């Protein structure tokens, strides 16, 4: 799944995002280097999802800069950002319930330059099925008939079909049973091993820190802590706030 030219770094500098009068993100700076898996952890309302949606273009920041390699992302429409290789699997999965699994997966390919290359698409589909075999079985079913875990797999699979250089994963474990959570994170680890750059937003800080290289801890819209994942996992404050009692 990796692109030989995937050497761009994602860089956010002092980004501020507000909903009307309410500031959700108050000046955060984040970097994701190629090949890294960076985690954003923090509790509800910390601004993690807002950050991802700003990167993928659904929201426009009030201040700050967002660059991917040489490209300024702020002025781009969402579909152009996808064309640059950044793909966002949103919170709550948001697969298309009225479309079939196949249609959902194929929709991931609309921005690919090689979308008419049946062989390449077929190979990528097989790749997705190797991560999530159940999707192959459910190809003809509509998305709405899938279970929560299957939908999450479909959401990630759909994102993977876009051949992303940078994958934004928003709360992949949300609402899933522990067994499924393990499965999803196993796949995430495989993706990382295959070289995909990933920015992972997770409330489940324990699992996120296990699989990440580095992490940022967000609280009420600001970065309060950052560092290598192992260091953060061992940090007593982090442990108290985010790792105690979290499965």
């Amino acid at each position, binding site marked *: 799944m990796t692109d030989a030219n995937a050497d761009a770094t994602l860089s956010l500098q002092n980004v501020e995002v507000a909903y009307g009068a309410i500031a959700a993100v108050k000046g955060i700076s984040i970097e994701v280097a190629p090949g890294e898996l960076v985690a954003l952890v923090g509790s509800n309302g910390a601004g993690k999802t807002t950050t991802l949606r700003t990167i993928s273009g659904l929201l426009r920041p009030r201040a700050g800069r967002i660059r991917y390699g040489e490209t300024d992302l702020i002025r781009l429409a969402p579909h152009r950002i*996808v064309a640059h290789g950044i793909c966002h699997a949103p919170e709550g999965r948001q697969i298309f319930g009225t479309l079939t699994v196949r249609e959902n997966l194929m929709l991931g390919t609309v921005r690919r330059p090689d979308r008419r290359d049946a062989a390449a698409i077929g190979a990528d589909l097989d790749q997705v099925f190797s991560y999530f075999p159940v999707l192959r079985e459910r190809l003809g079913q509509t998305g709405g008939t899938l279970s929560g875990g299957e939908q999450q797999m479909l959401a990630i699979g759909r994102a993977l079909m876009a051949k992303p250089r940078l994958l934004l994963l928003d709360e992949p474990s949300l609402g899933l049973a522990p067994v499924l959570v393990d499965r999803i994170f196993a796949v995430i680890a495989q993706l990382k091993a295959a070289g995909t750059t990933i920015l992972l937003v997770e409330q489940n800080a324990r699992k996120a820190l296990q699989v990440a290289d580095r992490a940022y801890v967000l609280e009420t819209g600001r970065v309060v802590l950052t560092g290598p994942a192992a260091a953060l996992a061992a940090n007593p404050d982090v442990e108290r706030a985010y790792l105690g009692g979290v499965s």
Partner: protein
Amino acid sequence: MSSTEFVQQTVNALSLGSIYALVAVGLAMVFSILRLINFAHGEVLMLGAFATYFYVDAGVPFVLATVGAVATTVAVGMAMERIAYRPLRGAPDVALLLTSLGVSIAVQNGASLWFGATPRAFPTPDLISEARVIAGVRITGTNLMTIGIALAVMALLTYFVTRTSLGTQMRAAAENLQAAQLMGINTTTVIVTAFIVGSALAGIAGVLWGARVGRIEPLMGFIPVLKAFVATVIGGFGSIPGAVLGAFALGFGEIFLVALLPDDLTSYRDAFVFGALILVLLVRPQGILGSTEPEKI
């Protein structure tokens, strides 16, 4: 009602329902993606009829004129989207609705000024409009043409929506616009496509309506679009199959209501239609096939 009359009325209802369906699908398509109730859709219908009239007047054969008319309506629809609706992306539903009302009134009055308010006769060729006798029942050619064209168009549309990439993108955008954007779907392209298809359908409907009623005048689009709108509500707000279903339900309802009502109440037909609309909105606002549960308190 005799059996012959019944067949005739059924054909009549199918024909009326077909026209409503063409308009309703266009409305539903735009609504499903943009949450915009495009009142100006009726004016697109009217312009389709008038364009045909003027092309025929200029000497163009009827069939070619209708093709030209459809091209004209597509251009008009695209212009509307670009000028009036695109700047309002992200505005609340009511703002969009009001703006479409404004566009509708502007175009209605513009047409009245330009064409004059006097009705003109629609130039349906006799070859098409003359009645034929099928299985002992007299059926007008216009009705046959209407039903035939509508069926063909529906078939094409179904193919487009289910089997092409763009059609699938439209369905995705209709279900969840933001998720569609995240997949890299260019929502502007999808929206413009919806307007193109919708306007083409409205243009065709304009020709068929003109043929059906025989006369055209600048305000002719208003009631059909309102009725088509009722159809989309009955069938399910934003659902395209629902729009078709609602349209035929409405067509049958109207024709048979008029046939069965005592004479002095038939002119209240429109009141009954909109009474039905209110009833549906109260009892089952999402319509027969609609899925999005509306915000009800």
